[in-house]
């Protein structure tokens, strides 16, 4: 595999509106052809970052390059970037075909070429039969496809998607996610996808940029970010997790050991950099706990009382009260061989040192 080519590079980006700092210390390189998600809670600056790339806003300081060219002075209409708006922003006075043709017409392409490209794009988004419909005659999912087609028909180097599925209901959302992946594969454009929905980010992205309060917190592949969050915020924002306030007791070759005040010890192979006496938060995902001892060598254990079981088909969620009164959530995959404990019974809980993540206190 050849080295990825950078298409967008932001160095020391800062954006303020008056005295409000919306973005700070933004250093980000986006590679050609990848799906990159800007993920974060509302108000974290992800939409501002995207509007900067689109050209609707300008950086207060720092540089933004697209294909190596500094675009500070380039207005949105002259950037090789197109956007899919959150509320689609389709033109109500035009029909589907004319909406999709808009950008090509502005560019002044020949009519035959416009027709051909619009038709091809409508085929990709499966809207050929609705070409002559007006926007208010379409469903939400259809509007979404028109918005995608209207942006993609211009063959942008980068496609920006601003929470494009937020207005759709769950079922269509899942369908559109799959569509989006297919369209990405078919067009080969770089997708920058803004969302506050961690599931969308996980399903779609090659890399996730996690943001909080105007700063980038972590950039990683989704599976790495989930397994190795680098901050408490990342651990809590992506998926569910169990957190323990601990202090590091020992740090050695086999890993780092941290203990809660009540004496439960956690051995971690992901705790390098912490020294004895440091206060750290231990994060263990619900699925990393188990009622069965899988691996004699590295498993650690503690005891507790099963309080509650929620059964959701292939998985069950257990709430267990540990002996120090801390409550943890355990996810158990349905498995014929191991009989899980009944509510009210005592149970031994096992986990593996590989799945123990030690995080600095926030």
């Amino acid at each position, binding site marked *: 595999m050849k080295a990825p080519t950078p298409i967008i590079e932001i160095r020391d980006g800062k954006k303020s509106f008056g005295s409000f700092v919306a973005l700070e210390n933004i250093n980000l390189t986006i590679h050609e052809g990848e799906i990159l998600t800007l993920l974060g809670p509302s108000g974290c600056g992800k939409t501002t970052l995207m509007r900067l790339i*689109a050209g*609707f806003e300008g950086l207060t300081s720092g540089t933004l390059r697209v294909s190596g060219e500094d675009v500070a002075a380039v*207005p*949105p*209409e*002259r950037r090789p*970037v*197109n*956007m899919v*708006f959150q*509320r689609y*922003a*389709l*033109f*109500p*006075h*035009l029909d589907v075909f004319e909406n999709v043709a*808009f*950008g090509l017409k*502005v*560019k002044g392409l020949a009519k035959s070429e416009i027709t051909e490209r619009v038709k091809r794009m409508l085929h990709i988004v499966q809207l050929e039969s609705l070409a002559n419909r*007006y926007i208010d*005659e379409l469903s939400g999912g259809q509007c979404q496809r028109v918005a995608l087609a*209207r*942006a993609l028909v*211009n063959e942008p180097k980068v496609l920006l998607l601003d929470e494009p599925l937020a207005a759709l209901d769950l079922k269509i959302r899942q369908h559109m996610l799959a569509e989006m992946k297919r369209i990405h594969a078919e067009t080969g454009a770089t997708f920058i996808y803004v969302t506050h929905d961690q599931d969308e980010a996980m399903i779609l992205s090659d890399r996730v940029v996690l943001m909080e309060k105007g700063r980038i917190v972590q950039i990683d592949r989704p599976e790495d970010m989930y397994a190795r969050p680098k901050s408490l915020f990342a651990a809590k924002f992506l998926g569910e997790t169990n957190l323990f306030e601990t202090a590091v007791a020992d740090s050695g070759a086999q890993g780092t050991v941290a203990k809660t005040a009540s004496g439960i010890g956690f051995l971690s192979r992901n705790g390098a950099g912490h020294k004895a006496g440091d206060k750290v938060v231990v994060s263990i995902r619900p699925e990393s706990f188990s009622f069965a001892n899988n691996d004699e060598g590295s498993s650690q254990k503690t005891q507790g009382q099963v309080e509650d079981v929620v059964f959701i088909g292939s998985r069950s969620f257990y709430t267990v009260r540990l002996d120090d009164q801390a409550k943890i959530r355990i996810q158990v995959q349905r498995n014929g061989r191991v009989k899980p404990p009944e509510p009210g019974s005592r149970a031994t809980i096992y986990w593996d040192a590989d799945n123990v993540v030690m995080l600095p206190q926030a």
Partner: protein
Amino acid sequence: MSLSKSVTGSLLSAPTVLYMAVFFIVPSLILFAYSFWSAASYQVVPDFVLKNYLGSLTSPLFWKVTFNAISIGLWTATITLILAIPVAYYLVYVARSQTILYLILLTWFSSYLVRIYAWRTLLGTNGVLNTVLLQLGIIDHPVGAFLFSSFAVTITLVHIYLPFCILLVVASLSEIKRDLIDAARDLGTSSIGAFCKVIAPNAANGLIGAFMLTFILVAGDYVTPQMLGGSSGQTTGLLIADQFRKTGNWPLGAAQAFLMFLVSLAIYFALLTAGRMSGLVVHRPRKKKEA
């Protein structure tokens, strides 16, 4: 207990409908009936004659003053709309506060007549404009033509009706989301291009409405032309008013009022047709959705 939608609707609109029926529709119908009656020595005689209409249509004076009224109306409405659009655009898409909108509304607190007299002061032979031009040496004696001209009438009417037109344009732009401008720019148009290709077509009906309402108010205004227009200040409005006030020929006045109404209607449709032919106003054939 709940009332059906149609019953609720009727109840809510009943007072207005009643008021308009009694004080607008009925009087209009009476006026319409009058327009076929005849007048003899300050008396209105029930009759059925077409002479009020035919007489007006063949009278050079009627056409001269109607031409005046329409020309003042079209000029004023055009200038007003051109001035109102950038202000409304700023108010709807750029400004974050409503202060300027309130300031615009504030201008309505000054009296109509006071403003007309203010313009007389500004434009008169000893007025501000002449004094400044004299001081600058651009003219060597006061220009009388500033006052009592269609220039004076138009400038005053623009001043009076601009706030009204701005509000109408603001209302029609408010329905169009800012996103559409961003989307158009994202797809390669400049900001002006975005206005022409996206905002204007979507606001076209509202913009034509703003133009027409301004036109109708201005074309029917007979106070400003009378006080500032001199010989060019004879408009249909004044002619009609004179039939009621001075000559006492109500049937003729009524007929002329209806003719003016028809002329306004004709201009509206001409405008709409021009808009559609130029592609600015999109005429959407409402397709029935398949069941």
